[in-house]
């Protein structure tokens, strides 16, 4: 067996039965943007623009570092961006420019933080 075969055979999210820490009973109320992200996922699935399984695969495809360091909904939205590029629905440049435009719109307002 090569040294890296195990990385290919076991996806980073396939953790059933692996050793792990005691459970910490963390909970949090969703931030407004997280709720909007979840609603976006449901609307994308309803229209089959990105179905739920595609989303799961897209999150896995972020790779173990991003999967480990981004929070749950952060992983979803980055995965959506990548999936939309793959489907040629969006182009990376369009998204980058739109993000700049939205950022400028919000920084010109006296109070912000998502709602």
């Amino acid at each position, binding site marked *: 067996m090569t040294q890296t075969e195990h990385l290919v055979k076991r996806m980073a*999210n*396939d*953790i*059933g*039965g*692996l*050793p*792990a*820490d*005691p*459970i*910490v*009973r*963390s*909970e*949090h109320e969703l*931030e407004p*943007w*997280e*709720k*909007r*992200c*979840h*609603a976006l996922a*449901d*609307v*994308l*699935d*309803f*229209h089959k*623009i990105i179905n*739920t399984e595609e989303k*799961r695969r897209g*999150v896995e495809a972020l790779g173990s570092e991003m999967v*480990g360091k981004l*929070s*749950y*909904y*952060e992983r979803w*939205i*980055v995965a959506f*961006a990548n999936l*939309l590029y793959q489907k040629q*629905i*969006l182009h990376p440049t*369009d*998204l980058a420019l*739109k*993000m700049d*435009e*939205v*950022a400028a719109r*919000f*920084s010109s*307002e*006296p*109070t*912000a*933080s*998502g709602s």
Partner: protein
Amino acid sequence: MPNAHEHDHPHTEIGQEGALGYYDLMTRAVTELLIHKGLFEAGEIRRQIEVLDSRTPALGAKIVARAWVDPAFKARLLANGRAACEELGITFYDDTQLIVLENTAQRHNLIVCTLCSCYPRPVLGLPPDWYKLKPYRARAISEPRAVLAEFGTIIPDNMEVVVNDSTAIVRFLVLPRRPAGTDRFSEAQLADLVTRDTMIGVAVISDQEPRP
């Protein structure tokens, strides 16, 4: 702890004064672009937020209480969970099916999604963070009794523990055992006893003081 970062940082990153968090920005930008392309309408996102807000463990609790008081409904619920919920007006906005798992004197059920975070959202709402993180997902499937003990739930050895891993189109809801002392409880009082954690299966409902 390697994955401490998963939930020890604040969820809204406020950057510069008045700036949006990076992922909030990304979500808004993706949404606006797709609406502009006509792939869906802004109203659909707003509506789906309302849908999500309306799905809470209180719905699951009402289903459980109804199953406790109505044996014919309980039989239908165990035969086809989704159809029985739809009978009560709880729609499923996706293509998932629902299997309701009855806890008995012989068997205790719990649910997990080892590969991701599948959860019966149409009837329970959104899952707690711990359900989606590594410790629960890795260990509930291989050492359920130890996991249950961490939640303060001890299942005697003469009962079987069954762990249900959702990896496909079926979602699960645990039907907890009706506690003793509740013969004179109303259906609403029964529903008040049923918590989210008892419908995931990490907790059980304690016996009650009988009402006069």
